């Protein structure tokens, strides 16, 4: 509890300043606490957390007087340690819930001891014989050569399918629409040109449909359409005349007498 004593001793003061200036060298408040705890020169299990808290708070105070900016986490720790200090000093309040000062102190001691233990472990680990430094691996490794053997297989089915594919590939033809039930304008025109000469009287267009195209609805539709289109074509050429007496009445044609 030397925190409040003025620094008359120059050396001591310099040491304290060095500690503060070197605050960047510490890995956070826990690291600093661990370092401070060492000054107690006792087993970490028997450490006085109260004394440690006071040391830490004094450190922060000194940093303030020296106008050294401490990182936020150092200040958070200072606030927490001040709280812990008050808990440790005041008699326990039975109505107060939450952990007692002793429990908090015990946990801090545990954390410090654990960190210290891990540091020792790290040091022991790095002091071990290390590969590439103390012991060595084979300098001329003979790598396992992987001999890759490829076995080709084919089944009789593959063979026959392959052959079938070859022998039938000429049979493929490009896809065309099935035109069984379609009569084109050209076909109808050809037909009608041949027949029209005999049509002196008005005749129903539908009677021109070829045999086999009158009954089946699909064929009838196609043939009717193409014959109608063909007759319009013939009218345009002046070969025939066309008429329809009423809406939906039969369409009649006859050869153009004058033509």
């Amino acid at each position, binding site marked *: 509890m030397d925190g409040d004593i003025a620094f008359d001793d120059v050396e001591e003061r310099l040491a304290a300043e060095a500690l503060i200036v070197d605050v960047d060298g510490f890995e956070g408040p826990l690291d600093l606490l661990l370092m401070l705890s060492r000054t107690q020169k006792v087993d970490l299990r028997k450490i006085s957390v109260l004394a440690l808290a006071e040391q830490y708070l004094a450190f922060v105070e000194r940093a303030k007087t020296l106008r050294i900016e401490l990182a936020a986490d150092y200040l958070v720790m200072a606030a927490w340690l001040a709280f812990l200090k008050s808990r440790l000093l005041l008699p326990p309040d039975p109505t107060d819930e939450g952990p007692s000062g002793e429990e908090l102190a015990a946990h801090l001691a545990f954390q410090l*001891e654990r960190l210290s233990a891990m540091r020792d472990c790290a040091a022991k680990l790095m002091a071990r014989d290390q590969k590439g*430094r103390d012991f060595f691996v*084979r300098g001329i490794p003979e790598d396992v050569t992987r001999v890759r053997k490829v076995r080709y297989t084919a089944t009789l089915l593959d063979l026959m399918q392959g052959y079938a594919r070859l022998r039938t590939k000429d049979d493929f033809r490009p896809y065309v629409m099935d035109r069984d039930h379609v009569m084109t304008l050209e076909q109808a025109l050809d037909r009608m040109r041949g027949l029209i000469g005999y049509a002196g009287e008005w005749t129903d267009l539908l009677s021109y449909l070829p045999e086999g195209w009158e009954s089946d609805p699909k064929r009838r539709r196609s043939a009717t359409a193409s014959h109608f289109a063909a007759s319009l074509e013939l009218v345009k050429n002046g070969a025939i005349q066309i008429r329809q007496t009423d809406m939906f009445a039969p369409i009649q044609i006859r050869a153009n007498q004058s033509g």
Partner: protein
Amino acid sequence: MAEDEEESLFEAPPLAEQERMVEAILFATAEPVTVAELNARMPHGCDAKLALEELTKRYEGRGVSVVRVGESWAIRTAPDLGFLMQKETVETRKLSRAAIETLAIVAYHQPVTRAEIEEIRGVSVSRGTIDQLLELEWIKFGRRKMTPGRPVTYMVTQEFLDHFGLENARDLPGLKELRAAGLLENRPPPGEDLGDDEDDDSQTELFEEPEEEEAHER
């Protein structure tokens, strides 16, 4: 291969011959070889484990020795002869204090989350530190923890064991003492145990069965 098949028709080669084979295979490689791989490469009927035991005995006190690395085996020079090898010495990047401590924490507390590492060290762990250890292949990702957020865990690798001449993670110096002293526990701060309870449980569980833990760690 031809010999392999041939051999399988007959009895396994005598143990002395098997020992020669293990010797040849281990000498040929820089990486540790598993018993399973030895068996796979040797003719049928061979017992690599037995041959390994013989070979290990044979090399006791020699300039090189047969060492166990986890479930694998390798030949390494005797550490006392390291001074002869300046030429072979590999300059390793100097590890930062943070990296060394983080490595030790992973080794002693594995599987451990980053939050736990930070809790132990009292400072945040920079991405670079973990990356460096991963890059050295000294740590690897372990199973995710069954706590909220399912954080990843870190564990040490076979390369770590190989590098530090450890047979397995149980051989870490002082491990037993630390465990007995309760210093490997992840004790939650008093009064904050609500959310941490789960954490603590799984942690304890992981540490109570270290044998099994390590058994299936190659």
